[in-house]
């Protein structure tokens, strides 16, 4: 199935490609080619199923990665198409016209990462969160501990114990017991 990667490289260009397993191919392309590429794959190749759509925050690179997983249900091979978009201008073209269930993926990614998909029907409509007014929670710079401390403070009178200090106090500096202890 490696020929599909070569054909994509010829038609749309590719930044990298990889055979992760015989049944899982990976390719990285530019964001502007995503919709033409996925449209071509659905119309002219056996990769007709959108199995998954995901986002990864590469905060140190100032980018988000979008990962589209397509599957050929007859040959039993999946193709992982990856692209990166600017983290500050977090916007990508919607694919809901190609696969209707992409609406839910794009709605959730919009809510959890703040990536906008113009034209996708449920952008800005809460999927899981209600009354959320912080930065999108799946971004790497969202501090879960700080959020908990500010929104759900501990009850007065509750005793806190630092786990590391407590283990050291009970078991000694090594922090664990040997069989001969």
């Amino acid at each position, binding site marked *: 199935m490696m020929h599909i990667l070569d054909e994509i490289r010829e038609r749309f260009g590719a930044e990298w490609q990889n055979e*992760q397993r015989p049944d*899982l191919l990976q390719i990285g392309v530019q964001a502007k080619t995503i919709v033409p590429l996925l449209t071509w794959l659905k119309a002219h190749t056996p990769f007709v199923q959108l199995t*998954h759509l995901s986002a990864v925050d590469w905060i140190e690179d100032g980018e988000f990665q979008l*990962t589209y*997983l397509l599957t050929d*249900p007859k040959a*039993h091979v999946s193709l992982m198409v990856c692209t990166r978009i600017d983290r500050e201008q977090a916007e990508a073209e919607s694919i809901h016209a190609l696969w209707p*269930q992409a609406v839910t993926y794009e709605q959730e990614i919009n809510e959890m990462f703040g990536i906008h998909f113009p034209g996708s029907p449920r952008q800005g409509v809460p999927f899981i969160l209600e009354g959320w007014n912080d930065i999108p929670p799946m971004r790497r710079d969202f501090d*879960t501990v700080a959020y908990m401390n500010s929104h759900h403070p501990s009850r007065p009178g509750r005793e806190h114990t630092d786990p590391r200090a407590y283990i050291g106090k009970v078991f000694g500096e090594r922090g664990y017991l040997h069989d001969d202890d």
Partner: protein
Amino acid sequence: MTTTETAELRRRVQLWFGPQHPGITGNMSVQAWLEGDTLTAGVTHVGYLHRGFEKLMERRRYIQSFPIVCRICVPEPDTNEYLLAAGLDELSGLAAEVPERGRWIRTLVLEMSRLQMNLMTLGGHIGAMAMGAAPNWLIAMRDFVLDRFEELTGGRIYHMFITYGGVRRDLPEGFAERMEADLEAIEEKLPLVDNVIFDSSVFRKRAIGVGVVPEEWVDEMSLSGPIVRAMGIPRDVRKDFPYEKYPELDFEVVTTTGSDIYARAWVRRQEIAQSIDLIRQILRKMPEGPYCAKLPNMLTWTIPPGQTYVRAEATRGEMGYYVVTDGSDKVRRVHVRAPSYVHGVALLERMIPGTNIADLAPLMVSFQVCPPEMER
């Protein structure tokens, strides 16, 4: 839902089905609009259970994620444990070192998990139609399997048993004999269930021809599991993307036709018999040897950068884990591809218009919607 759609729907009777309703399949709700007894539209709402599992895993070492993932689908946790282990085994290079016995025990656990989940869901099929006897019998049968899980793992529901490189413990002495006794007890009682469900005129009238999913939606919406097999399409991850020891087991993909609630229940009933047979095959073929690879120090374990997608056949359909590592001691990203994510939102919302309000609960059970895996 867009503003225009919402304005249009405001003119109709609106009903919130769940989150507190005996017919709902867990912590979710369906905002439905009615004309008479007929639903004209519906929107799935989740978030009642959201505990941010995927985010939590990004802050924890690899070994600390097992108590998290098993909660992603409460009644069938083992698929999640397996997929997390399989994904990180692959990216770390441990996959080649998982011993044979470890792989067989993993397969055993996965099939026991499928058995107990299908027993519960089959009860749900008829329970959603307000018939109480068979669900109670099936829950009792499920408890036989949970007894063996408790013996094997220490827990009835959450097991945390499959781990990196294999499984946490070996099979206890005499486990196969006790498992066989339980399988015989289940087999003995299944004809009663068949009488009450599949021979029941009430169930047949309410299930045959109801909730028919068109075949052309399969690829369009990436449907999987019993929904697809009830259309006569033999798709099953255990056959199509073989993992662990399934290629060495003798079984055919269960299919039937009709694509309605009855057909999906029938597929699950046949898969109960299939799981019983597979468990017996696994126990017969179980080799001697170690059950887990030598693992690195879990407090300092780092995994090279990489990404993969691993999948397994849950009773609800294809379950997948998209796993990304960055060379550190924690996952960069874990994204769960749950069957209910498609079946419980896009498919359910598409099926609702034209459905009788009384058929909504049976329809949801037949899709086996599991809310925790939708909101992870």
